[in-house]
Structure formats: C-alpha cells, structure tokens
C-alpha cells in the first residue's frame, strides 16, 4: 500500500488529541448544553480514525517514534506494528459502535452521569490506544494505570448503590494486583539489561535483555498473572461477573469487548516479542489455564439468571478459548513449528475479534432491553421479539454468532481452533501429541454449552410470553442504539462470510509473532473467499449461497403448489386451554440439566423450608466455587497475618525510629 509512512501514527495521535479534547469538553456540558449531542459522535469519529490507522499499519512496515513528552531524560517511545495495528482495528470498530450507543444513552440519561461518562470514557479510549502503541514499559504502565482508573470510575457510574461500590472495589483491587505483577515483570527484564544500556525501559532494550530460562520463566508467570487478571483468566476472573452487571450497559460492552482484549494484547506483546523463545511448559500452562477457564465460564454462565452476569461468565469462557489458542501457539513455537504456531495464533486472534464484535453487540442489546423494561432478571422478561423486533434481530445475529453456529463469525474461529488442535499430533512429544487433541473435545463441549446458554438467553428474553404485565408496554430502542447494533451485526455477518479477508488482516500479526516466513498453514483467497487447512476447506460464501438458494426454491415450490395461506389461531398447547406465562421454562429451569450433570463443579446453596414453616420459601443459588476455595481462605489468612502484625505497633515514635534504623542496618548489611 502506498501511504505516507507517518500517516497511521499521525491518525492515532490525531484521534488521541481528539479524544482528550472531547473528554474535557464533556465537563462543559452543564454550562453549554448545545455541545452535548456532538460529544459521543466525535468520539466515534476518533475510534474510526484509529481503526483505519490500524488497518494501514497491518499492511505496512512497523513505525517507531520517540516523543520527548515524559520526564526530562525519560522520553516516551511509541511504535505501530502489525500487532498494535490489529488491536487498534479491533478496538476502533468496537468502540465506534459503543460510542454510537452512548450517544443514545446520553439522550435518555439527563443526570450529570452523561457528562462524567463523557470525560472518563474518552480518557479510557485514549489510554487503551496508548497501550497499543506504547513501546516502552514507562508509557505502557502510565497508560495501563490511566485505563484502570478511568474504567473503575465508569464501572461505579451508579456509585450511590453499595453493591456497585463493592463491585467497583473488587475490580480496582484485581486490576492493581495485575498491574503490580506486570510492573515486576518489566522490572526483572530491565534489571537483566546489559549494564549501561541507555533507556533500559524501552521494549527494544527489554527484548535485548534476553534473560536466562529461569528468569524468563518467572517473567512469563508474572505476565500471565498480570494480564490474566485483566483478561479474566481463572482464578482471577471474579471481578467480571461482579463489575459487568453494575456498570451501564455500553460500559459493560466496552469492558468485555475491548478491555479484556487489552489483557490479551499485553500477554502477546510480552510473551511473544519481549521474552526469548518460549519453553514448552509455558504453552502447556496457558493451554490448561485457558481450557479450564473456558469450561468454568461456560458452566457458570449456563446457570445464571441475570442477563449481564450470564454474559460476563460467557466472556470468561471466550477469553479461555482465546488463551487456549495462544497456549497452543506457544507450544508449537517451543518446538519450532512456526507454521502451526501461526495457525493457532490466527485462530486466537480471529476469536478475539469475533468476541469483541458479538459480545459488545449482546451487551448493547441487553442495555436496550434494560432500558425498555427496567429488568435485568431473566425470570421477568420474555416475548420482546414482538415489542422490539429490530433489537431482537440484531440480538439473534449476536446469539447465533456466539453460539458458534455457521454462517456467522463465531464458527470460523471455532473451526480454525479445532484444526489447530488436530495439528497438535505434529508435536514431537508423544504424551503432548496424545493429550492435546482432547483439548479439541473440550473446545467442542464448551462450544456446545455456549449454544445451550445462548438459546436460553435469547429464548427467555425475546421469545415466549411476557412474564410480567408491564413488558407489554416496552418500546423499541432509539435510532443511535439500533445503529450501533446494526453496525456490529453487519461486522459479525461479514466476518463469518468472508473469513479470507479477515485472515489476510491477521496474517501479518501471526508472522510478526511467530516468525513464520511467507507460509502459513491456512491458505486463503480465490474468488470464493475460502479458507483451507490441510485440504479441509470451509467456503462460507458458496455454502451459504447454496443454502439460501435451496431455501428460496423450497419456499417458492411450496407456495406455488400449495398456495393456501396459513390460518392464525390461538396456541394449541396439546389442547390445554389455559396457558399462562408461568408455565414456560424459567432461566433456572433451563439451567437445571447443567446443575444436575455438573453438580460437582458447582457450589449450590439450597434453601428448603421445613414441613411446618409458615412462610415457606424455596431457593437455590449457584455460587462461584472459587470464592470458597481460594478467595475467602486467602482473605482469612491475610486477616490473621495482619492481626499478628498489629503487635508490632506500639504508638511510640521511638520504637518506629528503631524499626527504621534496623531496616537501614539490614539493607546496608546486604548491599553488594
């Protein structure tokens, strides 16, 4: 592509400037209400600029720049390569749709929340873009912290409720545990840099540090913990199901669609470009953690009855699948199978892109439902396809996409992932070659569970009878919201029907990270836009044209030969005349088989009243097992330790000075 070399980076910097300006302009909304309608559309323009810049960067050479903006003598390094470019495209498209939705959100929320969201949201967008282009640990950590704080404020938008504040605190806490791990990882790498390296914190210098296998392993584990906390890998996923339900829906979309991918980006950046060649156990670790996360998320999302908690656990599941793909890529890379590593990586990145599209779509649609009905509980919804037909159509596309059903995009990444798993037989270690195809079975199980969950979600929210009388007055959402849904739905369909183009976009990233030369295991192209792995093809355009043709011929034939139209009548219901909304499956009922089969994986608290209870109540609550096996014991442990530590406090200044002296002496004794 013939574009000026500075154009992509210029576009990103332009978008950053635009976002910062818009962010501070939001503060003026109370004084100058006229500017309010322009705030979020301008943010969307910025998002489109970054997406465009990212697409340009994918086709072009890496661009580097040093900005003299940090502290004196500590400049910022920025770099736009294929990896940054891909994630800029992902976040640009997704945040463009979210900005459109927020434009509608602003119209209906008149309290100052809109202005606050305007400020924090655009700072968040800017910090995310900065993370993607940062080329040193210093700028990276500053942008990371800005992202953590601004997203925290967005999560606690509705800060008057105690539950919101608690969820926000949990989010902030895990975010910072992760940030500490990342900081230590960078610190270890910087300490290994050759003495006298100028600007040892730049990514170039960190890569040149090339620590030994032991230290590289430590850095890998720290990076996995740090970025895993952001992405929601087991066991650090607990913030997702708490933070997503309490945040405003467009912000939940942003959390799931984009911010989780920032964790994935960080993991890829550190593990693939900063660290030396991976050891096999890295790949196995990421693969096992990823698959465990995926299964756990799928099971817990199947038993939820809150729309947003369900979607949040489903995000945990999808992140797990992405991580499994990355683990597989690391494993292939460790054994020098770069071509296969590129295949696994393409599958993981494709799934990241898909998840950004369909999960944002689902969260935005959930926001519309929430606004129209004021209800987040699946048990009080139903039949909305009649009241909100366009939202229901958009959500149907999202549902089919996340269920991994062809012809939508979720299936393409699942297909690629399964092909990558099948290729694991090429690994030179027999036990690995034997065990890893079982991961494919787990992936299939997770995909099947995802389909189960999404049928439950869509069926209960949009189909059936309204479970509450007031649902009959629900109305379709506004133009902005529907535009946002439509845009994401179009991207879901396009990424499903034209996989060759998406893979052409991802391929430079896979080559950059794995060092696979011109060849990858996925062949693409041709007029049919097909994808081929080892002679196995998936050509969606031909298949779905054929399906549409058969369907059309079927309709025409049936109509031509039997022109009698149908008759509308009351529901038959096996002849039973009284049908009420209470007779339908509830969310709990739909999840019951899962609870039954996977009892040992779940912690179920049942409330069974005694026989002479005057006010009997039946309840069964499924809880996250990890709270009880990990977090609560951990909290009790900390409590015990600090209770003991309290003995060291004497409230006398002399004793504290003594402590200081002792510390100094010890440090001096150990100083080299």
């Amino acid at each position, binding site marked *: 592509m013939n574009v000026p070399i500075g154009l992509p980076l210029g576009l990103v910097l332009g978008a950053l400037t635009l976002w910062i300006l818009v962010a501070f302009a939001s503060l003026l909304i109370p004084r100058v209400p006229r500017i309010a309608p322009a705030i979020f559309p301008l943010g969307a323009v910025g998002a489109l600029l970054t997406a465009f810049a990212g697409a340009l960067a994918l086709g072009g050479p890496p661009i580097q720049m040093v900005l003299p903006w940090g502290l004196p003598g500590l400049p910022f390094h920025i770099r736009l390569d294929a990896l940054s470019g891909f994630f800029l495209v992902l976040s640009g498209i997704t945040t463009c749709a979210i900005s459109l939705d927020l434009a509608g959100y602003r119209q209906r929320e008149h309290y100052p929340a809109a202005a606050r969201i305007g400020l924090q949201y655009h700072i968040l967008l800017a910090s995310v873009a900065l993370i993607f282009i940062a080329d040193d640990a210093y700028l990276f950590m500053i942008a990371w912290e800005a992202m953590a704080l601004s997203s925290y404020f967005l999560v606690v938008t509705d800060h008057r409720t105690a539950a919101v504040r608690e969820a926000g605190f949990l989010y902030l806490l895990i975010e910072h545990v992760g940030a500490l791990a990342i900081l230590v990882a960078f610190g270890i790498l910087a300490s290994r840099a050759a003495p006298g390296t100028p600007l040892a914190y730049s990514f170039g210098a960190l890569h040149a540090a090339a620590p030994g296998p032991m230290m590289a392993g430590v850095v890998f584990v720290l990076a996995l913990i740090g970025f895993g906390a952001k992405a929601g890998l087991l066991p650090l996923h607990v913030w997702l199901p708490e933070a997503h339900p309490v945040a405003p829906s467009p912000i939940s979309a942003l959390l799931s669609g984009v911010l989780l991918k920032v964790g994935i980006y960080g993991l890829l950046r550190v593990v693939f470009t900063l660290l030396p060649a991976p050891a096999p156990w890295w790949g196995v670790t990421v693969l096992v953690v990823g698959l465990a996360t995926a299964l756990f998320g799928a099971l817990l999302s199947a038993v939820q009855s809150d729309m947003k908690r369900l979607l949040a656990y489903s995000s945990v599941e999808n992140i797990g699948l992405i991580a499994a793909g990355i683990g597989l890529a690391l494993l292939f890379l460790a054994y020098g199978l770069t071509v296969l590593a590129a295949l696994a990586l393409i599958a993981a990145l494709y799934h990241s892109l898909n998840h950004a599209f369909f999960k944002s779509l689902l969260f935005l649609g959930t926001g519309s439902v929430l606004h129209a009905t004021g209800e987040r509980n699946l048990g009080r919804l139903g039949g909305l*396809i009649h009241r909100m037909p366009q939202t229901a159509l958009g959500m149907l596309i999202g549902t089919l996409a996340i269920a991994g059903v062809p012809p939508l995009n979720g299936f393409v990444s699942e297909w690629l992932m399964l092909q990558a798993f099948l290729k694991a037989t090429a690994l030179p270690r027999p036990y690995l070659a034997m065990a890893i*195809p079982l991961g494919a079975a787990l992936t299939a199980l997770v995909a099947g569970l995802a389909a189960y969950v999404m*049928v439950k979600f869509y069926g209960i929210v949009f*189909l059936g009878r309204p479970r509450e009388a007031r649902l009959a007055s629900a109305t379709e959402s506004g133009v902005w919201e529907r535009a946002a849904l439509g845009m994401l739905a179009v991207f879901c369909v396009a990424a499903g029907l034209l996989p060759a183009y998406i893979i052409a976009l991802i391929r430079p990233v896979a080559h950059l990270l794995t060092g696979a030369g011109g060849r990858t295991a996925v062949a693409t192209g041709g007029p049919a836009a097909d994808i081929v792995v*080892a*002679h196995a093809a*998936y050509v969606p355009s031909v298949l779905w044209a054929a399906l549409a043709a*058969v369907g059309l011929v079927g309709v025409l034939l049936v109509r031509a030969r039997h022109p009698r139209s149908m008759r509308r009548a009351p529901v038959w*219901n096996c002849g039973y005349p009284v049908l009420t909304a209470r007779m339908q499956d509830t969310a709990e009922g739909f999840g019951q088989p899962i609870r039954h089969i996977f009892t040992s994986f779940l912690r179920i608290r049942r409330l069974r009243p005694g026989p002479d209870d005057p006010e009997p109540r039946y309840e069964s609550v499924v809880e996250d097992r990890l709270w009880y096996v990990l977090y609560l014991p951990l909290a009790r442990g900390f409590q015990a330790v600090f209770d003991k530590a309290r003995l060291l406090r004497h409230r006398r200044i002399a004793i504290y000075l003594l402590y200081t002296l002792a510390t100094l002496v010890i440090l001096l004794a150990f100083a080299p």
Partner: protein
Amino acid sequence: MTLDLVVRQALQTLFVIAAAPLLTGWIRQCRAWLGNRTGAGILQPVRELRKLFRKEPVVASEASALFVATPYILFAAMVLAGAIVPMVATRMPLAAAADAVALAGLFALTRVFAALAAMDLGTAFASMGARRTMLVGFLAEPALLMVLFTPALISGSTSLIVIVRHLAGHGFVLYPSMAFAAAAYLMVTLAENARLPVDNPETHLELTMIHEALNLEYSGRYLALIEWGAGMKLLVYIGIGVALFLPWGITQSHGLAALPGAFALFAVKLAAAGAGLAVIETLLAKLRLFRVPEFLGTAFLLAVLGLLVRYLLGS
C-alpha cells in the same frame, strides 16, 4: 467436465431428498416386521407428507417470524448437508466446500433454530423439548468431533473427500481404531436423530419426548418440512457413517458411467443400515433422560479410545 460435477451434485441431492421418506418408511416397516406386525409399507411417510402439504397450516397467533421461517431453514440446511457428504461420488463442488467440522456446525445450526422456534410460543412442553434438545446436542457434539478426528488423523485432513479417498484407496484394511470410532458414531447417531434409546420417534408420551416436543405447535406444510428434514438428517448421518467406515463403492472417477452402480450400492448400504437401526430399536428400551449423559459419555470415551489406539498402534 464441469457439467459432470453439476450432474453428480444434482443427482445426489435429489436422491437424498427423495430417499429420505422412503428410508423412514423402510425403518418403520422393519420394526413392524420385527414386532410381528404387517406394517403400512415403505411408502407411508410419502403419503403422510403429501397429506400434510395439502392441509392448511394453522399457526398460533402469537407466533413470530422466527417460528414460520424455521421449518424452511431446517429443510434447506438438511438438503445442503445431503449435498455436502460424499455418498456416491467424491468429485462434487459442494463436497469440497465444507469439511466434517463444518457439517457438524450445520447440524448445530438446525438444532439452535429448532430450539429457538420451540421456545417462541412459550408452551411448557416446547420449552422442555428445547432444553432437552440442546442438552443432547452439547453432549453429543464433543463425541461426534472425537469420532471424526480418528479418520482425520489417519488421512491427515478433516475433509470427507480426502478421508474417503484415503480409506477407500487402501483396500479392505481394518483399522482397530476405526472399530472404536464406529461404535461411538453409532451411539451419537442414535442420540442426534432422536432414536431409541435416547428418544422414541414413535410416541408422543409427554414426559419423555424430546424431538416431538419441538414440533407440537407445527402443522400442515411446516410440519411436513420438519419431518422431511428429520428424515434427511438420519439419511445424512448414515451417509457420513458410510463415508467414514464403509467408503468402498463411492466413485472417484470423472465420468458419469460409474454413477448408477454407486447409487445402487449406496441404496443397499442404506437399506442395511435401516434394518440394523430397526433391530437396535426393537431390542433396546428408552433410557431415563439423566442416563443420556452416561450414554453419550460412553460414546465419547469410545471415540477417545479410538484416538489413543490410533496413536499407540499407528493403525
């Protein structure tokens, strides 16, 4: 040459569409014989379909567009599946456009749509059926994929064409791994097609039905399309089984001369499979719903055993 491809493709597709009701009729007839009954003849499903197409369909007034569109989607998807599986010939344009995993995806598509359409009216039986269908589906899918992986490992590709060429090209070699896979595949086929012991296609016994519960509100041509589609699904499953485990006789030549023989051989295989199915259904009783996970778990483990045997013995 190109015309050849189109002719082969069209003939096989039409064969699948036409043979599906006959296969259903044949299985019912065999079951009747095994039960010492006369039976209604193998043309009975054709008569039933004709009757249903003639009747005016009654659709619930609360039904949405999804409910009306679903029968067409199910039917079209099964026709497409019938066109993809190489049952009589390997040189077919659509067979090259999708592999076994895409085929599994196509089945998942029909399952999701059937379940959603069932939930559309909010009746108790239909949502129960939707839940159970999805349950069987997500348990059967991993087993199905594991089954497909064994021949995929032997031939090096998940494409059914490549598998057929590889397996048929080596003469009558018996792979021990394929025996395990075939047993697992049989169990998955029974579950996915709502046959005994997972579901009983003959009854509307309210508390045990799975597949029938989905169709309770359909009538007229919609019901006809769904029933026809279900028949094609069974045929396609047998077709996949034939391609994986008995690929001999599937023509790989360019001309059309071998086609009649291939069709005849495939019809014989179908008839044998249908008779076998009738025997199985006569001998087995229906399982409790919560024994189904064990049934499919067994299928999964058999498939995994097949995979391991393939690794350890290389055969």
